[in-house]
């Protein structure tokens, strides 16, 4: 306040235009915060507030009835020392992520590269490959998947047509159940493919021409022109795919009937969190699981950004 009183008259003299600008600034502040009101409210009530509450609850024993009882680090201690299902679910999600994200990205990039070579019917191919991404997360497709990979399902029916007779239920066998969900995720490579296609179009043709003149073959052109030019898009796609994979829930819920079975083989982390919270009503524990997820996603994103600092090419000057 004191400094304000001292500097104000001086600055007013020094810069005659200062006062109206300041008034405009104030007007902008009012307008800005008026426009921001819904988001600020939402952030406080729906996002930020619940985050803090969740942190608090993670240190309590709370069943939704009664009031939360402070138990310190007990939830976290239990998680890391005695809870086998916690590790099982973390392993399921991480396996799913590590297997399916590279498969999705490689398929998407491969298809985008092929389509970008100027084939006819690009629009049709693009549409066909994209449609699964729109519906892949729906309950209807999860139901379809149950039937495709069931013991008397479509896959085994097709196999018997070509002479391989088996009645293995792919979703009923712990070793393969998770991979039916990986297939479901890979089936949805189209969304990433479209982003790659857009990225590929931004690569200047001159670079390819120059590379060709220098004697670079297809593989070399891909490695030395396409990949570096596309690296920011790759980072974006991998990041979004990863964050999505961490939160996978619907298909696993439908395919395993909410159990995460057989033998916890599709017990995705989020499914376990849901079970602890809304089946066992162990709300404090579920909140602790949520915070661990937050930390894991944060660390994974950080690692990715660290890696990308060396691998991603943002143009000449940077």
């Amino acid at each position, binding site marked *: 306040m004191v400094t304000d009183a001292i500097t104000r008259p001086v600055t007013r003299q020094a810069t005659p235009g200062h006062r109206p600008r300041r008034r405009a600034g104030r007007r*902008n502040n009012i*307008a800005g915060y008026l426009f921001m009101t819904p988001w600020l409210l939402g952030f406080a009530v729906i996002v930020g507030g619940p985050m803090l509450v969740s942190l608090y609850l993670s240190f309590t024993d709370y069943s939704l009835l009664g009031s939360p009882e402070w138990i310190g680090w007990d939830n976290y201690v239990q998680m890391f020392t005695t809870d086998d299902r916690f590790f099982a679910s973390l392993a399921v999600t991480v396996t799913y992520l590590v297997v399916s994200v590279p498969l999705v990205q490689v398929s998407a990039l491969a298809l985008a590269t092929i389509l970008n070579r100027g*084939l006819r019917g690009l629009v049709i191919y693009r549409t066909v490959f994209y449609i*699964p991404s729109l519906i892949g997360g729906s309950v209807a497709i999860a139901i379809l998947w149950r039937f495709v990979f069931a013991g008397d399902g479509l896959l085994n029916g097709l196999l018997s047509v070509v002479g391989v007779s088996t009645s293995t239920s792919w979703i009923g066998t712990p070793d393969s159940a998770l991979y039916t969900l990986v297939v479901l995720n890979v089936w949805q490579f189209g969304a990433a493919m*479209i982003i790659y296609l857009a990225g590929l179009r931004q690569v200047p043709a001159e670079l390819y021409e120059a590379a060709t003149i220098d004697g670079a073959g297809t593989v070399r052109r891909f490695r030395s022109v396409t990949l570096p030019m596309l690296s920011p898009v790759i980072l974006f796609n991998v990041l979004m795919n990863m964050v999505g994979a961490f*939160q996978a829930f619907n298909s696993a819920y439908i395919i395993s009937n909410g159990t995460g079975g057989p033998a916890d083989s599709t017990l995705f982390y989020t499914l376990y969190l849901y079970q602890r919270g809304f089946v066992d009503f162990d709300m404090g524990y579920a909140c602790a699981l949520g915070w661990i997820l937050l930390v894991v996603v944060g660390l994974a994103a950080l690692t990715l950004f660290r890696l990308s600092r060396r691998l991603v090419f943002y143009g000449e000057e940077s």
Partner: protein
Amino acid sequence: MTVLTTRAAGRSRRRTSTLRGTTPPKVFLSHLGLIALGITMFYPLAWMLGASFRADSRINDPGLWPGDAFTLSGYATGLAGLSGVPFWRFIANSLLVSVLCVAANLLACSITAYAFARIDFRFKRIWFAVMLGTLMLPHHVLLIPQYMLFRAAEWNNTYLPFVVPKLLATDAFFVFLLVQFFRAIPRDIDEAAQVDGCGHFRIFTRIILPLSKPALATTAIFTFIYSWNDFFTPLLYLTDTRLYTVPLALRAFIDTTSGSAFGALFAMSVLSLLPVLGVFIAFQKLLVEGIATTGLKG
């Protein structure tokens, strides 16, 4: 605008790249591979469509055509619905929720995006960083407190838990998408309007919004599809069968039809996919460009 130019550039580039060294047999092989892949990917969908018209006894037939097993009983059984509530009711509920979510998202996200893109207010950079942070926030951290909050407000068995978060612009992805789009609109236009005495509200409604139709359309279409497919929110908040949305009704169908009436389950699954496919086909061009320019995941 930018979309148009990149498309034109892409086209001419493609022409040169076709001329450069891609031999006819190679092109033929590429088409063959792509068509084979497309058929493989669509086979399960086509099979489900076929199976929805097949008698339950022949449901596991891997063929596509129902043939002499053709029946409409799957649709008849399915449309009869769950515990006396016809399936149309679930479709109507889903439509209502989705349309409300679209309206809420359009309104709230565009207002917020305008502030971020066009108004210089204090601490804007900090808030923007916070908003970007919420983009990657796993939703499950907020789950239980949100559930407690909405329950305390007695919002279970209403559609408020679907719509109110959207009215409060918590769908950060669309805020971000619109900010990017608004920023690309030349500032001269609104500066001219400002000289003519327009305030922010009028610049927003008369200039920015009309110029942003593609981005708004992308927001609307994706919000519709996400809300239509949303399974988690109804799973948490809806217990009254009459209020069920389609995904929750389908899930309840699995339980009631276990061991029988697969035809009905397939028939209703097919019906549930139609609105999404319809919206996609109707707005295909807008959508694909929207994803391409913003990097949305479907």
